[in-house]
């Protein structure tokens, strides 16, 4: 496992992209700005959609609020891109970090939660029927998981010496 990890880190560090990200003072901070803007778009859009599902802003037609999912996907795309570039640039920092791996695991769980939403809840919204009880669970779980993703991201630099 350690040899695989070393190989991945060495390979990434030898790429041209690694040099572009780490070989100057500008690219990494700009990627951080993009990552923070992306998280605002993702979390803000999910607040609109998930809180509507649990009963807030009930004047919004449930069928229409889903449009905001597109903004969440845009935010996620920005953060997937900037996040992968962080990884190529500084893999020896992230791939050995417990908070990083916990964050990745929670993103996976949040993805499964979204898949369940698309599979079970979205058809109910489209059909205009009263939402089943698990819709509320999915909505709260989405907000809780993404909050933890944000928290774990902020913890990455502070668990390095633990």
């Amino acid at each position, binding site marked *: 496992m350690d040899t695989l990890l070393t190989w991945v880190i060495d390979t990434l560090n030898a790429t041209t992209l690694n040099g572009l990200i780490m070989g100057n003072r500008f690219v990494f*901070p700009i990627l*951080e*700005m993009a990552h*923070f*803007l992306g*998280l*605002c*778009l*993702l*979390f*803000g*859009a999910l*607040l*609109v959609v998930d*809180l509507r599902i649990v009963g*807030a*802003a009930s*004047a*919004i*037609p449930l069928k*229409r*609020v889903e*449009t*905001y999912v597109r*903004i969440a996907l845009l935010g996620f795309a920005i953060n997937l891109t900037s996040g992968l570039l962080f990884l190529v640039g500084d893999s020896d920092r992230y791939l050995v970090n417990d908070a990083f791996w916990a964050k990745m695991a929670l993103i996976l769980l949040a993805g499964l939660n979204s898949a369940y939403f698309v599979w079970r809840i979205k058809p109910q919204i489209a059909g205009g029927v009263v939402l089943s009880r698990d819709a509320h669970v999915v909505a709260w779980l989405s907000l809780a998981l993404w*909050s933890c993703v*944000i*928290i774990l*991201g*902020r*913890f990455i630099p*502070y668990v390095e010496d633990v």
Partner: protein
Amino acid sequence: MQNLFWLEDSGIGMAVSSTAWGYPITLSLHAIGMATMVGVALMLILRVLGFAAAIPVTAMAPYWWIALGGFVLNLLSGTALFFGGASDLFFNWALRIKIVLVIAGLALTWWLVQICIKRADDITPTHQKYAGIAMATWIAAIISGRLIGYMS
């Protein structure tokens, strides 16, 4: 300067700067508050700019309270973070500019809520002008916030 050291030596200042988890916990709360305040503000602004046109603008008004909740969380967590490093942060230009931008962003979004989101489903070019300026202000606030660490 004496006052700044006094803030750093206070209970809150020491909890942030000198306990094992005080700093990352406060920083995490600050990130959640940002995501809530800026995120929801951007969603209101996008609606005024014409996104999700099938949703009545006034139906979005309750979310303003969520954005304000994020602001309160960040006023508290931001104050605590400031106490933790007051003697450096007071002189940090990125932080000074960020505070001005956050106040401007909040005031512009609040104004947009008053003249449009709470009031009328008809959006005018004036509303959209405010929305555009507010969006640019929030993005600039995030950029200057990221620069604080690079300037100290």
